[in-house]
Each structure stands twice: as structure tokens, then as C-alpha cells.
């Protein structure tokens, strides 16, 4: 039998604490080999039911999955022309997603996106047509070409900023176009390279199966672009750059080499763009200098502007809108560019960051309106606001103050010159309903600052008005020096003072 061990007060080795399961994660499963969860589940304790609940903190992955699945599943049921439009949408979305990586994540205002795509496409196509490179290696060739072009383009971006760099890249696009058109041995047919082999077999080109394969390829391309965006933007590189975006000096001071990170992002996305270029050449079976044209670039810019700069969903939504208008409404002619311009104008005038940012903007606006309403409500006159109510433990006091406020508001409406005249004629005695109510309210008031009549000692019918201090031992104070010659007059003076206080409360 062990004897019970006694501890000195305050020396107990372990307190017994029941586990509080409030915010412990319910689901700890992670993606294998990573520290990521598939969905962002959060656990929280519901204070009303005292039960632990599971909350999906970020619903974006669900929307992405639904949208992409709908796109993939609906493709086989689309008509041939619709299938082409959807494929083009996928290709342009992939380009825009990678461009967003450059403009948004890296923060380099580059307009050479299509130029890099074109360089990749031309390299792949030329190698395939003239040297007989098999088509799967075209992607590699395009990627390497894009990487090299991106590296060359990225060099001046440390020295030039903003607009100057944008102009330079625009110049590069122009130079590429002229170069390609003039290089006769490479491009004998007015700058374009035709009959490129690709993942779509020759016989199926522009046939239903060919279109389906083309769509499948474009869809996979979009998925890969989104994956690249996810890996670059929300992992280490993107995090580094996010710091630099907010404050470059701070980022540098904390040891972040944001310039290097920018270069890396630029090169990665340029390699991706090169791959897309090779895909583009295979998809159409040819590539022409039109890819370097300014109009095409402006249309692409319109896409990411409408969707919202710096967001993957913005790039995709903007592309969907513009491609639908540009390719889907061919019969309305030049009007469709007008429509795109109008949408661009409206989006820029009304939203802060495109359509993808509209939801957040609406929430900000609603929060602002709510806080404005709250600020308006502080003109309260004794009422208790919900914010301060949580600090008052005696809830009776809250209700009393609310009741008092309403009572005063009501009494204020009763006070008229007839009522005052009635009181002056007859301070004591039978009163009308309104005057009785007002006087009853006055009689119930706090002792602090309550008025009283004091008779001047040694004089008959000479009265002054005092106000109680409300503190035991502290004498009342004289309200003013006026002396009243009759008690009724004094009663009425007190009444007027109280009325004044009521009206001002």
C-alpha cells in the first residue's frame, strides 16, 4: 500500500485539464510527400451549440474543379466550330495564365508574351520542317527557345522600369515580326512556315477526331499552365515576390533577392510560353507572323485586363469573355472589337482589379457601408450600442437606457407652448394627460443634478433654485442668482429648467 503523496500548495506536478476540442483540426490527412492539404478545411467551435464544426475556408479549388470538369465533359457534345473556339480559349488561357505570372507575380510589365510564344513556335516549326525533328521533341525545342528568349529579355528588366520596359518588349515583338518576314531561307511563304507535323495526325486535320484531339491537347496545356502558376505563385518563389511587391526595400533588407526571384519567374514562364508556341504551331499545322502583331497583343492585354491583373482566375475569365465575343460573334463584324473595348472601359472605370476582383471589391464596399451606418448610429442620445453592450454586464441597465431614450423621444413630441402655459398657470394640481406624463418623468429622475427650491432665510416669498450634487456630504449648488418672488413662479422656473435639459438630452 503506497502512501498518498502530499504536495505543498502550488507545487502540484500536473494539473488535470480536460481537452478542449474547439479549434483542433478534424482532418489531418495531407497530400502524400507534401505538407499540403487538398482542401483548406478549418475547424471551429460553434459557441451556440458547443460543437466542433468543419468549415471550408477556401472554396476556390472547388469552383476550379467544377468549371474545368464542365469544360472537359461538354467538349464532345459541342459542334465543330464551338470546339475550335473552346480549343482557342484553352490555348489563350494558358498563354494568359503564364503572362499573369510575369505581370502579376514577377511584376514585370512585359508585352513580349506573344513574341516569346512566336519564337518558340517558329523554332519548333523550323526544326520540324527543315531538320525533321519528331513532334514530341518540338515542345522541348520550343521550351528551350522560350527560355533563352526569356533570359535575354529579362536582362534589361533590372535596369528599365515600367513603361520603358513595356516599350522595349513591344519593340522586340516588332523586330521579331520584321526578322521573320525578311528571313527568306527560313520562311519562303511570306513569313509563315506551313505543313508542320504535330500531335494531330495529318488525315484528321480539321476533321472531327482531329478537333477532339486538338481540344484534348489544349485542355492539357491549360491544366499544365495552371499547375505552373500554382507552383510558382503560391510556393516559395511567389511568396518571396509577394514581399517584394509590398515593399522592395524591406524585402531586400530581410535578405530576399527579389531581382533573382523575378528573373527566375520570368525564365520559367518564358519557357512555358515557348512550349505553348510549339503547341500552337502543331495545333494549326503552321505559324505566321500574325502572332507578333500588335492587334493580337492588344486583344490579349484586353483579356487579362478584363479578368483582372495578377490572378489566374482573372486570366481565364477574361479570356473566356473576349474569345467568346471575338470568335463566337463573328457575324457582327467590327462591332465585336467595339464591344470588347466597351467592356474593357467599363471594367477599368468601375472595378479595382477586373472581374475576378469584383467580389472582393463588393465586400469592401459593403464593409464600408456597414461601418458608415455604425458611425451614424453613434448619434445615440443615451442608447446603448451593440458594441458597448457586450461590456455592460447588467443587461437590465441596457434595457433601462433604451427604454429611457424612447420615453424621452416620445415626451419631446408632447412639449408645446400650450403645455408650458398650462404649467405656468397651474404648477400644482389637476393637469392634462401630456403634462402629467412629463411631470411624472421629471419626478422619477436621478437625484444627481435634480433641481430644488430653496427659500432665502429671513425673507418671505423669496426663493432660489439649487441643484443637488448627488453625493452625500457635498452641498447643492446654486443654479443662478435669480430670486423668485412666489413659490409658483419658482415651480415653473424649475419646470422650464428641466424641460430645457430634456430637450437637449
Amino acid at each position, binding site marked *: 500500500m503506497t502512501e498518498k503523496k502530499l504536495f505543498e500548495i502550488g507545487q502540484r506536478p500536473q494539473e488535470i485539464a480536460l481537452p478542449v476540442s474547439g479549434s483542433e483540426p478534424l482532418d489531418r490527412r495531407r497530400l502524400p510527400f507534401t505538407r499540403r492539404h487538398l482542401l483548406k478545411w478549418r475547424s471551429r467551435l460553434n459557441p451556440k451549440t458547443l460543437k466542433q464544426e468543419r468549415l471550408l475556408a477556401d472554396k476556390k479549388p472547388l469552383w476550379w474543379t467544377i468549371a474545368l470538369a464542365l469544360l472537359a465533359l461538354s467538349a464532345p457534345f459541342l459542334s465543330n466550330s464551338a470546339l475550335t473556339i473552346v480549343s482557342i480559349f484553352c490555348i489563350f488561357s494558358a498563354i494568359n495564365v503564364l503572362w499573369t505570372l510575369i505581370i502579376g507575380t514577377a511584376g514585370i510589365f512585359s508585352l513580349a508574351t506573344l513574341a516569346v510564344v512566336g519564337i518558340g513556335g517558329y523554332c519548333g516549326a523550323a526544326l520540324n520542317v527543315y531538320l525533321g525533328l519528331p513532334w514530341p521533341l518540338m515542345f522541348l525545342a520550343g521550351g528551350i527557345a522560350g527560355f533563352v528568349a526569356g533570359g535575354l529579355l529579362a536582362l*534589361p528588366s533590372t*535596369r*528599365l*522600369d515600367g*513603361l*520603358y520596359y513595356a*516599350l*522595349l518588349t*513591344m*519593340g*522586340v515583338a*516588332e*523586330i521579331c515580326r*520584321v*526578322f521573320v*518576314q*525578311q528571313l527568306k531561307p527560313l520562311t519562303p511563304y511570306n513569313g509563315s512556315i506551313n505543313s508542320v507535323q504535330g500531335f494531330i495526325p495529318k488525315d484528321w486535320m480539321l476533321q472531327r477526331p482531329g478537333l477532339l484531339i486538338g481540344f484534348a491537347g489544349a485542355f492539357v496545356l491549360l491544366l499544365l499552365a495552371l499547375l505552373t502558376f500554382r507552383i510558382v505563385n503560391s510556393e516559395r518563389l511567389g511568396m518571396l515576390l509577394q514581399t517584394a511587391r509590398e515593399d522592395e526595400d524591406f524585402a531586400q533588407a530581410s535578405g530576399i533577392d527579389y531581382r533573382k526571384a523575378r528573373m527566375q519567374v520570368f525564365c520559367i514562364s518564358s519557357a512555358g510560353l515557348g512550349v505553348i508556341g510549339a503547341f500552337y504551331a502543331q495545333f494549326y499545322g503552321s505559324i505566321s507572323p500574325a502572332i507578333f502583331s*500588335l492587334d493580337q497583343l*492588344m486583344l490579349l*492585354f*484586353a483579356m487579362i*485586363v478584363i479578368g483582372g491583373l495578377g490572378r489566374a482566375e482573372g486570366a481565364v475569365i477574361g479570356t473566356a469573355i473576349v474569345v467568346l465575343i471575338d470568335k463566337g460573334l463573328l457575324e457582327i*463584324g*467590327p*462591332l465585336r*472589337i*467595339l464591344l*470588347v*473595348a*466597351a467592356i*474593357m*472601359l467599363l471594367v*477599368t*472605370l468601375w472595378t*479595382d482589379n477586373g472581374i475576378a476582383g469584383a467580389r472582393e471589391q463588393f465586400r469592401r464596399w459593403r464593409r464600408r457601408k456597414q461601418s458608415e451606418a455604425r458611425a451614424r448610429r453613434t448619434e445615440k442620445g443615451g442608447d446603448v450600442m451593440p458594441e458597448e453592450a457586450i461590456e455592460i454586464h447588467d443587461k437590465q441597465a441596457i434595457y433601462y437606457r433604451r427604454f429611457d431614450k424612447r420615453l424621452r423621444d416620445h415626451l419631446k413630441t408632447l412639449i408645446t407652448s400650450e403645455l408650458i402655459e398650462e404649467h405656468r398657470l397651474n404648477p400644482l394640481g389637476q393637469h392634462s394627460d401630456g403634462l402629467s406624463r412629463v411631470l411624472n418623468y421629471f419626478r422619477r429622475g436621478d437625484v444627481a443634478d435634480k433641481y430644488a427650491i430653496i427659500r432665502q432665510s429671513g425673507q418671505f416669498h423669496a426663493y432660489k433654485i439649487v441643484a443637488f450634487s448627488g453625493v452625500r456630504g457635498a452641498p447643492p449648488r446654486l443654479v443662478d442668482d435669480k430670486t423668485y418672488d412666489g413659490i409658483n413662479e419658482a415651480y415653473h422656473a424649475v419646470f422650464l429648467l428641466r424641460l430645457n435639459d430634456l430637450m437637449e438630452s
Partner: protein
Amino acid sequence: MDLSILLVHGLSLAAIYGLMAIGISLLWSSIGMINMAHGASFAVAGYAAWGAAEVAKPLILATLGKTLSGTIAMAGVCLSAGALSGAIMGGLIYLLAFLPIHDKPNFAVRSLIVTLAINMATVQTLLWVFGPKQKNLPKIFGMGRIEFLGLSARYDQLGTIIGTTVILGLLLFWLKVSRKGLEIRAMMQNPEGAVLSAISVRWTALPVTMLTGALAGLASVLLSQTIFVSPTSGAVPLIKGLTIALLGGLGSVPGAVAGAVIIGFLEAIIGALPFLGQRYVLFGTFLFIIAVLIIRPRGIGGLLDKARK
């Protein structure tokens, strides 16, 4: 190769590019806006001048005939129609791209996007209304050549050079002496300081946008003496003006003039060289500008620190 032709050609190109570049540069330095719709102003002014000339031609022929005064009247009609429509476009740009957004965050990028949208919309509207067919303006300076001090120049080239010099001189004089010009210069030097000295941003921006629009309009009428008016005719002058404004350093008027002269002569020389020719003009100028920008990241006349933040 005739050196005199080269000189005159280079000068006339420099004059037109200078008009465009100074408009862009002025707008950037005074209100911080890159006007991508400058090309649209250019095209609209070209069409307006064409329309005015079509209307006025029978009237002038009937009253004045083919005399010198008739030519002058025609020139006046064309130039004033171009300048007026350019100014109206400037007012439109002010209403759409400045007034609603100038106090919102990220104004520079926003206004760039809005003016780009205006540009796209205008070009498409012109294409829709007038069709892709090119129009040509009447030769307001007449046809012919003049020999002067051993130089040979076409009338239109000479007119362009002299006209631009006069216009730019008037503009700089106006900026120098007038009250509004003082306000604009104050805005260029220090926007916050200007606002604190009770200079209204809105009432300074309106004349600046209209003025730069009018400059684009004049450039359009002058350039349309050598090329045709078409819906997309604004694109090349816009790009040229923009690149020259950047080459000269955004916001620097002397820089813009220097850039225009350099690029004008560069184009004339590249176009005249036998082994390069016209098709390499854009190529060469871009290569040159890129080289300059890499050596001097803020252009020829731009300061190295942030001139406008």
C-alpha cells in the same frame, strides 16, 4: 544618294514625330497619363480634315478658284478641322480616361488601359463607318519642288517643317507667358505643390488633353500630305511618338525634340541606304532606341531619379 533630299526628308519626319511625341510627353509630365488614344486622335483628325475638305472644296473653288488665296483657305479649313477634331478627341479622353479615375489608386495603369480601349473602339468605329479604303487629303501646300540654297524640297515637306516649327514655337510661347501655361508648368514640376498652391488638377488637365489632341490633329493633317488617311493610320505615329517620347525621356520637351530629330534622320538614312531600305526602318529605329534605353534607362533628357512618382 542625294544628301539634301535626306536632310529635308529627315527634318520633315522629325517635325511630325516631334508633334506627336511632345503631345505624349506633355500629357505624361503634367497629369501622369500615357495616352494610348493619341493614335485615335490622329486618325479621327485625319478623317475630319478629309470630311471638311470634301465639304469646303466646291465652295472654295466657286468663290476663290485655283488661286493662292484658295489654297490658303483650303489649308486653313484642313488644319483647323484637324486641330478642332483632335481637341474634341482630347476632351473625350479627358471625360473618359481622366475625370472618373484620376483620384483612384493606380491611375497611370488605369488610364493606360482606358485610353487603349478608346483607341481600339475609335479605330473600329472608323473602320465601320468609313471602311478600310484609304482617303487622301487635298495637297494644302500645293504640288511641286522648290530649290533653295542648293537644297531641293517638295512643297509639302517644306510646309510641314515650317508649320511644325511655327506651331511648336507658339505652343512653347503660350506655355511660357500665359496663366494657364504657368499652371501647366507648375503641374509638371511638382503636382502636389501645384495643388497646394490652389491650381486645380481638373482645370489644368482639360486644356492639356485638348491641346495635345489638337497637336495630334495638326500632325495628322501635315503627315497626310505624304501618306493616306485610313482607320489604322494612327498606329504607326502613335508607336513612333511613344517611342520618341520615351527615347527623349518622358516629360522632357527638349528631350522629345532631340529624340524626334534623331529618329527622323535615322529613318531617313536607313530608308536611303541601298542594302537596308524602307522595310528595315522600324527594325533599325527600335534597335537604336533599345540600345539607348539600356545605356540610359530614362532616355536622353530624362533625369535618372524618379521624375514623377
